[in-house]
Structures are given as C-alpha cells and as structure tokens.
C-alpha cells in the first residue's frame, strides 16, 4: 500500500484547495507583519505610504530597502528548503530524511569556515559562492560514496550521515583552532535572514525559478519514486535517472538557500510532513502546499526571531529548531520511525 492511496482515501476533494489558500493567506499575513514590525516603529499609514508612495524618509527606506527584501528572501528560502526536504524524503523513501543527509549543510559550513580562515579579504558575497560550492562538494561526495544513482535508501542514509559528521567535525576543528577569526561565523552557522538585501533576492530568485520549472517537468516521474524500485523499473521508469534529477534539484534548492541564509534547521524536515497530513500525498497538491507553507513558516519564524531578544536580532534558526524539535518527536513517536 503506498502512501498516496492511503492518503487519498482520507482526503475530501475540496480540502487541499482550502489548506493551500490558508497557507497562502498565512504567507501574506507573515509578509505584512514583517514589514510592519521591527526595531523601528512603523505605523500602518507609514507602511502604506512606503509601499505605494514616492517618499524616501527613514520609514520608507526601512520598509523598501530592508524589510521587504528580507521578507522576500525568507519566503523564497523557506519554500526552497521545504521543497528540498520533500524531494529528499521522496527520493530516499525515508520520512525522516532532510537535505543535510545529502551533505549540503555540512559542506557549505565547511567551505565557509575554510574561506574565513584562509582568505584574507573575506566578504559576504564570497561566502555565498563558497557555501554553494561547498554544498555541491558535499552532495557529490555523498553521491559517489552511496554509489551513484542506484543507491538503496539505506546506503544513501549511511553515506550522508558519515559525510555530514565528517565535515561537521572538520568545521568544528577549524573553528576551535582559529577562534579569533571564526567567532563571527556563529551567527551564520545557526541560520539567519536578518542581513538580506535586494541583492540576495536577485541572487536567489533564478535558483527558485529554474528549480520550480524543473520540478514541475519532473513531477510525473517523481510519483514512481514512492513505489518499490523493481515495480518502477517494471513500469518502464528509469529510477536512477529520476533519482539523479531529484538529487540535482535538492542541491539547487537547498544549496542556494543555505548559501544565503545558513543552515536553517528543521524546516526541510517538518514542512513536508505537515503538508502531507493536511492535503494528502498527491504531488499535485503536496508540492504547492509544501512550498507555500515553507515560505509562510520561515517568514513568521523570522518575524518571531526579532522579538526573542528585542531589540536585538536572534538567528531565525533558533525559532525553527524550537518549533521543529517537538513536532519531529511527535512524528517519530506516531510513526515509530518506520517507513510507511
């Protein structure tokens, strides 16, 4: 029995649409809230003026140059991470998998810390490039260790966790040996969108756009990843090719998001599960739901992170982890951690 047919029985026809519109509404509210509340007080009237008016007072600049790109970055990064999580779980048929299993987070962190220690005029744009290169290197390492496209889910999980711990250990070693210069990276390592600018939005949007096109083209083939490899092959599916494509997509989605915002915890793991519980396993509904909910949750978590230590910023990763950990435990208990 596959998860899809089970879920379809539970799902009434109008339900997915309802939840998709609700998460779109949550996303919209989250973005409005992010524009309204921050360190500097902004009135509703001022907010409206900043969005439509030509003014360039402080309030207008806050909203247009800081809060809007930040909210958009959070929205895109959240959607990307959630989709990457969904794809990982589909490709590995492991409901507790997330992109860190592909070595993406650890690879990005490792490269950034190396850059920080080795390159004298280290700058933020360089960190983004390095982080993406690191994410790719981590993913390729896991890929080759697991034996290319024909890996079994268990092989991949083992290879992924090995690479993850290996690279994390090396990262921590570098940080301990070079405390003076790596102190500043701790904020990045927990994950944050607080410094996002329009430049980040411009950097991230092609990744999201191309990944979404690629994803929808791939959608029919992805369905077959849920069934046993032998059955899929029997149906004429090239399992290894589809899995490779999913892998590349995860790298594009998670790699670019992690490069800009740092490894934001738990989002990739939790959002696909909540979405599946709400709209069922049909990919046509699950993919948009996951993307919208991921964006909405990260925007809201980012808004909440401004108030943990107000008026100072806290990394948004703290909020997502605080929300995600109990949910994760709940999932693990309910399912007994087994593959459905």
């Amino acid at each position, binding site marked *: 029995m596959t998860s899809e047919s089970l879920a379809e029985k539970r799902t009434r026809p109008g339900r997915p649409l309802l939840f998709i519109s609700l998460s779109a509404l949550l996303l919209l509210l989250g973005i409005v809230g992010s524009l309204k509340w*921050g*360190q*500097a007080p902004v009135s509703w009237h001022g907010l409206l003026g900043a969005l439509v008016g030509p003014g*360039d007072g*402080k309030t207008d*600049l*806050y909203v247009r*140059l*800081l*809060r809007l790109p930040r909210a958009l970055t959070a929205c895109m990064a959240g959607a990307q991470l959630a989709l990457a999580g969904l794809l990982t779980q589909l490709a590995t048929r492991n409901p507790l998998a997330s992109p860190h299993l592909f070595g993406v987070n650890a690879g990005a962190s490792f490269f950034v810390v190396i850059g*920080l220690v080795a390159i*004298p*005029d*280290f*700058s*933020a744009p360089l*960190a983004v490039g390095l982080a993406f290169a690191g994410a790719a290197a981590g993913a390729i*390492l896991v890929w*080759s*260790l*697991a*034996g*290319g496209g*024909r890996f079994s889910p268990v092989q991949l999980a083992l290879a992924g966790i090995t*690479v993850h711990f*290996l690279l994390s250990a*090396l990262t921590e*070693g570098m940080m*301990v*040996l070079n*405390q*003076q*210069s790596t102190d*500043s*990276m701790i*904020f*990045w390592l927990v994950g944050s969108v*607080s*410094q996002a*600018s329009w430049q980040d939005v411009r950097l991230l949007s092609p990744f999201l756009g191309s990944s979404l096109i690629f994803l929808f083209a791939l959608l029919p083939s992805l369905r077959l990843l849920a069934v046993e490899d032998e059955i899929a092959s029997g149906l004429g599916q090239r399992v290894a090719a589809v899995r490779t494509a999913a892998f590349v997509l995860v790298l594009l989605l998670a790699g670019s998001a992690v490069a800009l915002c740092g490894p934001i915890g738990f989002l990739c793991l939790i959002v696909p599960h909540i979405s599946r519980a709400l709209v069922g396993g049909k990919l046509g509904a699950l993919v948009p739901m996951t993307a919208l909910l991921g964006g909405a949750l990260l925007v809201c978590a980012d808004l909440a992170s401004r108030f943990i230590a107000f*008026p*100072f*910023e806290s990394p948004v990763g703290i909020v997502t982890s605080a929300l995600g950990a109990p949910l994760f435990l709940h999932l693990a208990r309910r399912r007994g951690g087994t593959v459905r």
Partner: protein
Amino acid sequence: MRWGVKKALAIALVCLWSVALAACGAAGNSNSGAGPAASSSSPSASAPSPSAASPQASAESASGPITMEDAVGTVTLQKVPERIVAMDFSFTDALATLDVQPVGIADDDDPGLFMDAVKSKLTNYQSVGSRYEPNIERISALQPDLIIVDINKHKNALEQLKGIAPLLILDDYEADYDQMIKNYRIIAKAVGKEAEGEKRLAEHQAIIDEAKAKLGGAKLTVLPAVVNPTGFFAHSEHSFSGSFLAMMGFDDPVKNETSYPQLSLEQLVETNPQALFLLPTDQKTIVDQWESNPLWKQIDAAANGKVFTVERRDWSLSRGLLGSEKMAADLVSALGA
C-alpha cells in the same frame, strides 16, 4: 559498482588525510617557530634573572611575602614573581607600563594583535597560544611563578592552572574602565611595584585630563563598534571602550544592558550615533555593503563625516592604560577642536 564505491571512499579518505596533515603541519610550524626562541630564551632568562631580580626585590619589598586581594580572595606570594604568564592582552598592557617582562603571553599565536606601544616594550616572550583555551603544556613548560588569568574566560582551567603556579585571578574580560584601574593596582602590587604603579597612574590621569581639555567637553553620542564581514557589534557603555568614552564625557547612544549587542542597519539608523568609531576585524566588512545603502546617510555620523576607522587592537584588545591613552589620542585627532 563496488569498485566505484571503493574508489570514492579512497578519495574521501585521501582528502581527510590531507586536511589532517595540513592541520598538523600548521601546528608543527607554530611550535617549531616558538621552539628555538624558547631554547635560546630560557637559559638566558633563568640564568641572569635571579641575580638581577633579587637585589631589586630586596630593594622594593624587603618585607618578604606580598599579599593582595584578587577577584576570589587573598593571594600570598613568597617573593616577587620573576616568571609571569599573562593570559590576556590587558595584563600584558599593565605589565608593559611597569617595565615587567612576562615570560609567556597568550596572544592567540598572532603578535599582530599587540598594539605598537605594548609590542615595543616586549623584548623576549614566548606565546602560550589561545587566550580562550589555556594551553597547559606550553604554560607549564615555561615554569612560571605567577599566572594572571581572567575569572570568566579561564574558569574551566583554573584548577589545572593552579597546579602549575600561583594564580592572580582578576575580573577583567567584562571589566569597564574603573575596574581596569583597580586591576592595574592589584597587578602592580603583585609584581612588587606598587609605588611605580601609582606614579604611572598619576601620569595616565594627566594624559587623560589633557585629552579631555582638548576635546572641549563636546557633548556627542559616540559609538565604537567591532565590524566583521557578517556583523556590526556595538560596544555599549558596559564594555571597556564604551565605559572609557563615558568617562571622557561622551554619551552612549545604545543604552542597553548588553556589553556587545549586534546591531542591524535598521537599529543603527535608529540608534543614530553622532560619531562612529569602526574597529574592523577584516579588510572587508559589513559596513562596505551598508555604505551603499541610502539608509547609511541617514545616520548623523555618516551625514556629518564623523565615521572613523581605528585599530581594534588599540580600542578593544589592549584594554589597559596604554590602550586607553591611544584611544584618547585617537579621539582628540578625530573630534578635537
């Protein structure tokens, strides 16, 4: 397929090895760099110093044992210490003003972090590595007779360090300017130079008063901040440099309990300091990006051309009399009439 797995594994292992070896190489280099200095310094330091120091000691503190109060209790030293290890730049700053040569200094293996005025006074010392993680082996190899440590930063290593030599435990890392002066008196007493210490403090006060006069009581909100590629860390009046600015008669625009709050650009614009002293850690910092944002010009300091870049080693690391005097000089040259 198997072959592919094995090959990949082998490549991964080779990568791991090369990284590990590179790390060892780096560690080895720093040791070998310090090694000859140690072997040449220790005989020369141990041979002449007892003869040189004992008359000095008898001249200054003929009474024998020295006792003083540190942050945790009473410390008694049987004689004037000759082989002192300083676990932070602030202690080195104090020792340099008293013409005492420490045998070991925790300098994070980077002599570039000393301010010039301190470095020029240091003739022969050995680095004992990180200020955060005391390297017990390197410290004990120096056979010190006094180790000056911080009560917070070195909390976890106090027991081990106690086994090597008597400790002088000071509340330094979170100290403001007044606390630094108190610590200075304790250090001066510990090295048997109480009178010299008082004399140096009087000179210091004269330098500070002269700087204050030159600044002419300019009532400005002034913010010092450490800036690195990812963050802007303001130093509030609870930090050392912030408390020094308050003592000099400036206002702290941050007004917060935290010593080193990280500010976003929005907060910095709201804080709106009238003068800004940037202490960069790297060549490129977050301020390079902020400067291109129209909001940057909304800060009074930026609009009035009062953004200054000063040395972090002077303003934030040295944290002593020499550091304060350099800060006063920087302030006069930036804001003085």
